[in-house]
């Protein structure tokens, strides 16, 4: 979890698992989630273990979430947008687009 030590400029609001989250324009989704106190963004595919963003630079794929119905987005590379609907993923993905198990 992250503390913002400078006030974010230009607020942007989106939802994560139904909860409203405020971030700043230009933030990546992963950082915005961590700064909003989100600790676990998904449950792992094989063992169902809690996982959180690890590298924040597009390498580890631990930050995968569903964004506006599209699964497996790397949240550390996606910019937050007003009204974005973000949900966490649990286990393996399904072929039918956008449906969480």
């Amino acid at each position, binding site marked *: *979890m*992250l*503390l*913002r*030590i*400078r006030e*974010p400029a230009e607020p942007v609001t989106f939802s994560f698992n139904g909860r409203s989250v405020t971030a*700043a324009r*230009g*933030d*990546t989704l992963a*950082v*915005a989630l*961590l*700064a909003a106190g989100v*600790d*676990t963004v998904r449950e*792992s*595919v*094989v*063992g169902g*273990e*809690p*996982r*959180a*963003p*690890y*590298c*924040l*630079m*597009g*390498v*580890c*794929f*631990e930050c*995968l979430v569903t964004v506006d119905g*599209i699964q*497996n987005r790397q949240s*550390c*590379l*996606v*910019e937050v947008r007003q009204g974005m609907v973000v949900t966490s993923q649990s286990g393996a993905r399904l072929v039918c*687009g956008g449906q969480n198990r």
Partner: protein
Amino acid sequence: MSMRVVTEAGQLALHYDLVVVGAGPAGLSAATEAAAAGASVLVADENLAPGGQIYRGITRNTPERQDFFGKDYWKGRAITDAFAASSVDYAAATTVWSLDAATSPLSSSPRRGEGGPKGRMRGPSGQVLPCDAPSPPCRDLLPAGEKGQAAPSHSICDSPASGEKTGVATLGLTLAGAARMVSARAVILATGAMERPMAVPGWTLPGVMSAGAAQIALKSVSGIPAGRIVLAGCGPLLYLLADQLLRAGADIAALLDTADSKQRMAALRHLPDFLLSPYVAKGLSLLLGVRRRARVISGVTELAIAGSNHAEGVRFRAGGRQDAIAADCVLLHQGIIPGINLASAAGCTIEWNDTQRAFQPWTDSHGRTSLAGVLSAGDGAGIGGAEHAAVCGRIAALAALADIGLLSSSQSAGRLAGLEKKRQTYRRGRTFLDTLYRPARQFLAPPDPDTMVCRCEEVRAGTLRQVIALGVPGPNQLKTFVRCGMGPCQGRMCASTVTEIMAEERGVSPAEIGTYRLRAPVKPLRLAELGALPQTPAAVFAVTGRTPEQHSLEEEGKNR
């Protein structure tokens, strides 16, 4: 002229003289140099803004508001300003997922099999071979400072500007949810480095991040980890981050230094060179400064992270006894290694750099890889640091322009000589640092069988060792047996550990083991994006047996 920001796939040109992948110091400098010489240039980068790793967030931050970075960070401004003022197309938030190098260079004979590196060398089991004497991959046995000088016999690229030397490469990109293919006469891969994964028990728990990730949070949103922080690992960047976090007011419970004291002796003979390098003063003041302000524990071994659903602390051994420290956040780091996925999937020869203990694309002294028209610059071609990366970017741009006939050698000779001299300065001292901070064996190849190696497919060290003992020939077969490296990260997080474990089990050098064979797309691509790609007439014909014209005639007939 100034830079044009491309925000949708449809705004991309179909063809560029030069496509640069990566907008760190290497890519930005390469693009600026090439645009100044009149080339049409596209820079594609995954990040939301230019700067790469070191200068991340530089266009958003100010020295007044973000006063915790230190002066090296702000050097990035000059680079991004020059880039913004140059006539380039810049596609941010854009992933390059494939690169097909030109298969038939326009006017020269192909470089493959011509005395230079022979495409990509593979052993009988498909692994990358480190050496094919007497051709270039053996240069990796030279000290880093001499790399690139023992250039092999490049039949076609050592006499630049005698006409076109490259064909047309094709890149697959995705931006704003849509994929596109773009062609280029030359491509510079400036994809940078990643942190060397540090697999220790508990490293998959929430609350554990790489130290680089914490730095990214600081650079991108001025965020610091909440609560008590433990940093663990080795290398200059760990201390740099500790310094930045302390300045930003973070609560560092301890820095656990895992550096291997045995490396000190080995590094000693490179000390004189280091003492002449630009890193001395900065490095010393960092080390001392952090030691003064935070608890630093040296000689740490047997590190493990405790916690069930979140990191709660660390256990370790130091000074002959077990110890534990409570923490809310654990930051791991043990140096950086080149990000080779795109270069490797494109088919560039990959070589083992023993000093840096990592694989890297083979390059000549100007950054040309084994594939015609594909160059590599910056930390993606071998770790050299930000200023080195910027200079290498410029050198690669000049080489690329010469190869595609946009610059003559007389035009670039003076400039090249100056840049090469600068590069030499920035290479000073690297071998010392690389040797001193080579991670200890137990952090390269985790001894504890329960340590997760492949985070995606959840494969543990013990499983890997068992399967290796069955006689699996190489990492690629290991992957098929246990799915290690088959998840979405495509082996980025386990490749180096898998190679190290296999090398240890066999008692051979990692060079003999090789690494995963990678294929495009190097990042997962949605089928919908692939399906929506504009189709070439040749592809339509290959699939349907009819040309697009025949299709439209048929459509017309039906509608009539």
